[in-house]
Every structure is written in structure tokens, then in C-alpha cells.
């Protein structure tokens, strides 16, 4: 077997050195009735590299890849261009095959990257500090709510109706088991976000208000207004960013009064990958540092007085605090954080601003053209790179019909909100620097055909 270096002779000699007759003597503690006599039944035997590659390539070929079709999906996962050097660098074995940097003397590469990443994230989100990343945006969102409950010693979170429904469901799943109260605003197909409703729901029991920015329908809530209302009741504002490229153009949530800012970092450096792995961004005010979840990297000096970095404040974490930990989280999303950081380094603040401007301009071009399709209306007055179309009928069926025409036309609200009949006509359309005029025209034409009932 190509991955197993021991030879049959090695095995025999090693058993002899150990003083065991057979390999099964080493499994003597496993009760005989639980020991399988041979390979697990019903499964194939080993395969060559060539055979496995063929099998996997055949599976891959059964997917319509985003690059092979006019492509307009977003809703929390965005298709941006990734510079070639990003994937090259993350495949260096010293990054790819290292472990969590528990021995800092021989992990300064990973640790310095994390320190740079934390700084980049804090400056992007407009927060004092940031951690070394979480699993993804949705789990970071729940961790922020749990953290707000620890800080305020209150148990209620108010959720905006503009929060990504997968994030909302993740939060509700967790809260059902922890006993936190979740007051979720219903999603509504309005041109403006539900800021007033959110503000009206804040009271003296509220630990935090959770607002997505831009929201799931592409609208932009007034964070400063909501932050002031939260503060007046002693509640915290948790801002959620699922498209970090937007922060190249619109103000950072931390600068608008958000106490905790979480986000999905996939847009920078990380491909779509059918939903994961991605990386969660997590920033907050410095005074909350000891209530933060997740790994933190800090600067210090070594025995010779040279600057170096270590994982720090680990007494918050599960491996020391056990049942009193701030979170059960044991890993971050290290390699994705590295990819994010490299892409961010290539862009810099100025490049990110330019990238955001291009995204926004492309989205305007798409909204103008798609709004001209008979029967179609654009919901949003304001958006960044994603907006909502209102179709004359069920958007879920339209998306399927578009796919039959080789067009990946967006995400239907019926898919995102199963069972919410009032949203059926909504179609989320995302546009990035990757989206060409020809693709916009292809979607407009195909959508027109679909809505007029033309056969594919």
C-alpha cells in the first residue's frame, strides 16, 4: 500500500522486538466477539491512485461548475477571483501539514500569520480585536450571541428578519438546547430593512440584537441607529457580515457602534467548495477579550528578547476550563484563515476598495438589465453586490428551469425559506467582478424565456 512504509519483514521484526507473537496479540484488550476476523464486509478493497482519481473525476463531472455557466448565486457564499499565488502558498507543506501551534518555537510561521490575520480582520470589521477564526459565519453568529449573554447576564437575542435563514436556524437549534430566548423578526419582501421593528423589539431583557449587513436580501440596515437603541437598553449589537468584500465600500460595523462583529470570510481566498470549509470572522471590543470564544494569538518575546508569537488566553478554552469554558470549540479554520490573509495582503485596503467598487458597479449593470425583463421587478433601492428580484411566479421553479437552460440564475427564497409561502416569488441575484456582460445578457434572455413558458 503506497501510504504504509512498514514492510512485512519490518512487521515481523517489530513484533518480535515487542515480544508479541501476532498483531492480534496487540489487540488482546478488544473482546474476541468484537474483533472482526477480516476486512469489513461489503466494502471494496484498496485501489491505485489512478483508479481513485478516475472515480473522483467521474463524480466531479456530474456537477455543473460555476465557471461553466452564467452564474449568479450568493446568499452567503460568493464566487470571487482568487489570485493564483493564494492556492500555491497554502499548499506549502509547512502550512498544509502543520498542527495547531502548541509548540511556538517551531510554529512561528503559523502564529505570525494568525497575528497578521487578527489585525487584518479587526481593521476590516472596525473592531478593536479579532480572534484567529471560527468554523464559519453561521457558527460564529451563535458564538457571538452566547458571548453577549455571558457579558450582559441576559438570555434574549433579537434577530433581524434580514439575517441569513441558515444562520437563524443554527442559532435556534443551539438556543433550544441552551435555554436562550430567540426573538426572530419574520423575513419580509420590503424594499427597506426592518430596522424599526428590530428597535421596537429591544427591551431591558435583551442581551443582544443581531443584524446582518448587508442583509440576506441585499438591503443595508442603519447600524448606527440600531446600536444607539441597543445601548440605551444595555444590550449589545452583533453585526453579521456574510460578504466581507462589501466592507471595501460601506462603513465597517465596528465604526458604527457594533459591539461584536462576526462574518463569513469565504469571499476572500476561499473557493465555493459546495459550502465548506469556510472561515468565521469574529471581532469585538477589547474589554470583552476574556469572554471571547476561539483561539487567540498574542505577541510576546522569547528568552533572547526577540519578538515572537504564542497562542494565549487559553484558560478560556475547553482544554483547560473544561465544563466552564467560553465555548467547546477546539479548532479554528487555520488554512482558510491563511488563504483569507494572503488574499487580503495581495489586495490591501486600496485593492479591496477597488474590488468592492467593481462588484457594486457590475451589480448595478445587472440590476438595470434584469429589471427590464417583462414581469420582473428589483426589490431593493440600495444594495452592494446582491439584490432581490420579484418574479411573477414561484422563483424555485424558475431557478430549476434556468438550470435546464445551463444558467445558474440565483438563489430562490423558496429554497432558503421552505414553507414560507409569502416569499416564493423572490430570487436573490449576486454579481461579482467575475460576472461578465455576456452572462448578464444570458440570464436576462433565459429568464425572459422561462417566464414566457418557452421550452428549454
Amino acid at each position, binding site marked *: 500500500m503506497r501510504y504504509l512504509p512498514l514492510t512485512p519483514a519490518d512487521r515481523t521484526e517489530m513484533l518480535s522486538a515487542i515480544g508479541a507473537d501476532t498483531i492480534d496479540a496487540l489487540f488482546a484488550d478488544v473482546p474476541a466477539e468484537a474483533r472482526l476476523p477480516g476486512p469489513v464486509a461489503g466494502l471494496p478493497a484498496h485501489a491505485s491512485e489512478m483508479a481513485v482519481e478516475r472515480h473522483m473525476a467521474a463524480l466531479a463531472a456530474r456537477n*455543473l461548475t460555476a465557471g461553466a455557466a452564467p452564474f449568479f448565486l450568493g446568499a452567503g457564499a460568493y464566487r470571487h477571483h482568487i489570485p493564483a499565488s493564494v492556492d500555491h502558498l497554502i499548499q506549502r507543506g509547512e502550512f498544509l501539514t502543520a*498542527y495547531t501551534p502548541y509548540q511556538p518555537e517551531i510554529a512561528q510561521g503559523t502564529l505570525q500569520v494568525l497575528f497578521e490575520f487578527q489585525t487584518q480582520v479587526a*481593521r476590516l470589521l472596525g473592531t478593536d480585536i479579532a480572534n484567529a477564526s471560527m468554523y464559519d459565519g453561521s457558527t460564529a453568529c451563535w458564538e457571538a450571541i452566547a458571548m453577549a449573554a455571558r457579558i450582559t447576564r441576559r438570555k434574549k437575542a433579537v434577530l433581524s428578519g434580514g439575517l441569513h435563514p441558515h444562520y437563524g436556524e443554527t442559532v435556534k437549534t443551539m438556543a433550544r438546547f441552551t435555554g436562550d430566548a430567540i426573538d426572530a423578526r419574520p423575513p419580509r419582501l420590503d424594499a427597506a430593512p426592518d430596522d424599526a421593528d428590530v428597535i421596537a423589539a429591544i427591551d431591558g431583557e435583551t442581551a443582544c440584537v443581531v443584524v446582518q449587513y448587508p442583509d440576506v436580501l441585499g438591503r443595508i440596515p442603519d447600524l448606527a441607529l440600531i446600536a444607539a437603541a441597543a445601548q440605551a437598553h444595555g444590550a449589545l449589537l452583533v453585526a453579521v457580515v456574510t460578504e466581507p468584500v462589501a466592507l471595501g465600500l460601506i462603513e465597517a460595523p465596528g465604526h458604527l457602534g457594533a459591539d461584536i462583529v462576526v462574518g463569513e470570510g469565504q469571499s476572500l481566498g476561499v473557493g465555493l467548495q459546495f459550502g465548506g470549509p469556510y472561515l468565521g470572522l469574529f471581532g469585538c471590543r477589547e474589554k470583552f477579550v476574556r469572554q471571547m470564544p476561539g483561539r487567540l494569538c498574542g505577541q510576546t518575546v522569547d528568552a533572547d528578547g526577540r519578538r515572537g508569537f504564542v497562542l494565549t488566553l487559553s484558560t478560556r478554552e475547553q482544554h483547560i476550563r473544561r465544563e466552564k469554558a467560553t465555548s467547546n470549540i477546539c479548532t479554528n479554520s*487555520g488554512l482558510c484563515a491563511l488563504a483569507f490573509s494572503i488574499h487580503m495582503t495581495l489586495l490591501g485596503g486600496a485593492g479591496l476598495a477597488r474590488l468592492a467598487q467593481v462588484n457594486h458597479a457590475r451589480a448595478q449593470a445587472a440590476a438595470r438589465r434584469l429589471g427590464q425583463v417583462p414581469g420582473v421587478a428589483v426589490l431593493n433601492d440600495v444594495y452592494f453586490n446582491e439584490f432581490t428580484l420579484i418574479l411573477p411566479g414561484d422563483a424555485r421553479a424558475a431557478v430549476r428551469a434556468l438550470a435546464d437552460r445551463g444558467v445558474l440564475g440565483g438563489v430562490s427564497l423558496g429554497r432558503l425559506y421552505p414553507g414560507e409561502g409569502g416569499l416564493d416569488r423572490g430570487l436573490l441575484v449576486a454579481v461579482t467582478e467575475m460576472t461578465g456582460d455576456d452572462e448578464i445578457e444570458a440570464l436576462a434572455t433565459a429568464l425572459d424565456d422561462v417566464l414566457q413558458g418557452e421550452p428549454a
Partner: protein
Amino acid sequence: MSALNPSGWRPEAGTGESAAALAPTASGDHALALEEPLIFELAAPGDKCGVDLDAPESPPLPGLARFLRAAIAPLPGLTEPEAVRHYTRLSRQNYAIDLGPFPLGSCTMKHNPRLNEKVARLAGFADVHPLQPQQTVQGALGVINELAFWLVTLTGMHGVAMTPKAGAHGELCGLLCIKAAIAARGEDRRVILVPESAHGTNPATAAFAGFAVESIPATAEGRVDLAALTARLGPDVAGVMITNPNTCGLFERDMKAISDAVHAAGGYVYCDGANFNAIVGKVRPGDLGIDAMHINLHKTFSTPHGGGGPGSGPVVLSQALSPFGPLPFTARTADGVVHLIEDTNADVFPQPGAFGRMAAFHGQMGMFTRALAYILSHGADGLRQVAEDAVLNANYVLRRLEDVLDAPFGHSGPCMHEALFSDAGLADGFSTLDIAKGLIDEGFHPMTVYFPLVVHGSMLVEPTETESRAGLDRFIASLRSLAERARAGDASLKSAPHFAPRRRLDETQAARKPVLVWRETVAPA
């Protein structure tokens, strides 16, 4: 106060001067030992950019004016040559499994096959959106379904939840299944029993899921005390969380008896599958009465650790718990179509007992493709060989070193995939930390230290199956030399490492006055 420092771990700064300090250079570099500034010291924000972008074709929408960023984010940019050099230089300050053995017990650092990386990057997997219409992603759903089949079959279980994003997330998933199953019976059980040798994630997860955590003692031979556990069972106990093979590197011989007793008392058995790599293909946890077990794909199935993630933690479930798993999941109909079930009321495979979503989208697809490529490469026969070689290598290390390093459970029979040593017998003032730092100078990554907590000064060595015999012999020779030096009180060991990019770091300062982001006012030392 609670117990004073039971593990015995105390950071020590080290003494003496490093080789670098004795022969200073103008650059600070020493041949191939290269120093690297922070990106914030390499360029100022706005200076330059490594991505060429056209000018935007139109200005922002007028309605966006009140939301615009007052100033661009103060982040430096680097051109491609500078960026490639920065990250390549940093990479050389890391140890990695590609450079040598990485014997971290309980963490399982094995070779990462490059075929896995290649297939994960096929456009059909890498460039597919999670919310594409299902008719366009049958191959991706097929990967999830095929991996799920392997996991269920290898473990002898009934179902599997594929969405958890890491091992600890999987633990949470399993406990939520248990909580939902108990609620469905109309009962209220609040206590989870956890052995004192458990990973810290176990009690943390149980507490996070709203359970009270009670500890079960270990026997003198390092296994769960069955009598103590059985005595504690009752109508308030929701279940137990047991690691098997356990964190002392031993198989829990009484596992089936434990499961039977827990089931008889109305509870469920959660198994921490962190050490499944020791028994994969040899033992099916389902045959031992396990109700739920997470599988760290990076440990057993070789997905890369990436300097701390991303992980992936599918949870296999017994028949009793399968109806209560999370959404979404995949299922294949007789016509060969794989369905992604995102709704409890779906037309096909409705699952009214499902407890909901644990994260956005459908799990760590990029890890699934890698794990599936690894599993297909080994096959059922190769995976069995994986477990046998991992156990053989660990026992070889145990028996070749137990004359110079105390092996607290060495007398109780063979170990599984990891060998446990303690600091007993080292000279006064010498500790596990000194052995670990000495290994760095020897060119190896240290083993896991000060875990499990049940042994003072623990050293947990997990060689894995991907080390050659010659490589093991070199590692054993180094560890033997260090053990002898520490027994003899060789003072130079106290100041190790001498040859690493950094010497011992001041963790006290880092924790007392945390500096977590770079600021212009924080001058470099």
C-alpha cells in the same frame, strides 16, 4: 481553591544564550534561518497592490452615499513577488509532518496524501455553489452519500450526520441527538457522565448543551471504573461520553458492559471517536453498543490539519438516535438520484424528529472529497492495515523506551495507537517540558505533553502508521538520549531549544498584557 496544577505544567523561560545571539549578523538572518517582518512593517496602507483591477464602470448608487466607508481600511497591500516571499519565508519557521515525525498523541498527525489535494481541487467540487439546484450537483451529493455509506459500514452504525464542522462540533451534534431522543420519550435527564481522562472538549460540550457534567474515576490500570460508573447510573443520567481507545492509549475492555448498563438505565452512550484510527477496520463501534460517535476526518482519514483546521466531524448514529439527527442530510432513491433533505417536511425522506441545522450549508465538502479519496485508496483491507500498523508502531515505541522513561500503564498490557509516559524518574528540577523542548533541538516535533491529566507530567506519543521503521528508530534514539540526559540532570536541556527559530517564549507576558493586533505604537523588540 480547586486542585493546584494537577498536570504539573509550568512554563519555564529557559536560560543561557542561543547560537544566533552568540554570532549576530547585520540582517538578523542566519543563512537559511530567515527572519520576516510583519506585513504592516513591509508596506504602508495604500502603497501598492498585488491584484490588478479595472476601474469601476459607474459610481456608487446615490442611495448608498450615506453608508460609504469614511476611509479605506488601513491595510497594507503587497505585490505578488513580495507576498510570495513573505509567506514562503514564514512557512520555513514551521515544523510539519512533511518534514518529519509529528508524534502528537491524541491529535494523529499522519501523512497527507497529495491525491486528496488534487481531487479536492477538481473544478466539479471546488467551483460549485452549495445552493445550486440539486439536478446540477448530483456528483457532489454523491460524494457525501458515498462517504456516508463508508462511515456507517466501517462503524457498524445505522446513520450518520455529515454536517458538523469539527470534532467538537460533532460531539455537540451527538449530545443534541441524545437530548432530542430523551425529550421525545417525555423524560428529563440532565446529567452526562465523563471519565476524568477525557478530552477537555467532552465536559465543555456537555455543559454547552445544557447538561450537568459529573466525573467518573479511572482504575489504577488507566481504564474507566465500571463499578463506579454503574453505581452512578439512574433516571437523571442522560448518558456517558467515553473515549475508546481512551486517552491513555488503552482499549476500554468493558465497553460492551458499560453500554449495556447505560442502556439498561435508560441512557445513551456517546463515544469520542478521536482515536478511531486505532481500530478502523478491526472493530465496529456499533458492535460495542455505541449510540453516537464523531469521526475526526483529519485524524482517521488524513485530511490536512492546516495549522489548526479546518476540521470535519461527521457523527455516526445508532438506530435509536438516527431519527433525531440534524438537517440537512443526503439520501439516495431507487432511481439513483441523491436528494439533499433540507426540510423536516420534505416530499421524500421526511424526518419530523430532526433537531434542525447546526451550520449554514451542508458540511465540510472539501474535507469529504479528501477523506473519500483516502478511504478508496486504502479500501477495507488497507484500512485494517492502517490500524494494525498504527498500533504496532506505538507498541514498538513503548517497549523500546520503557526502560528509560516511566510508562505508567506499561504493565497493564499492550497499548493501542499511542504510548503514554510520565516524568517520574527524571532528575530533580527536570520536567516533561524539558524533554519536549529537547526534542525540538533533535529535529522532531514534541509529543503531546501534560495530557491526559490523570498522569503527572504526561507524554503521549502517537507515531501513526505512516512512519517507517527507520524513522521510528531515529526518533526512539533521540528520545532515549533525552531521557538519559534528563535523568542525569544535564543542565543544557533546561535551556532548550537552542536551534529553533525562537527559544522559549514568555507566555506569562502574553497572557498578562495581551497584544492581539498590531499597532503602530507597539514597537518591535
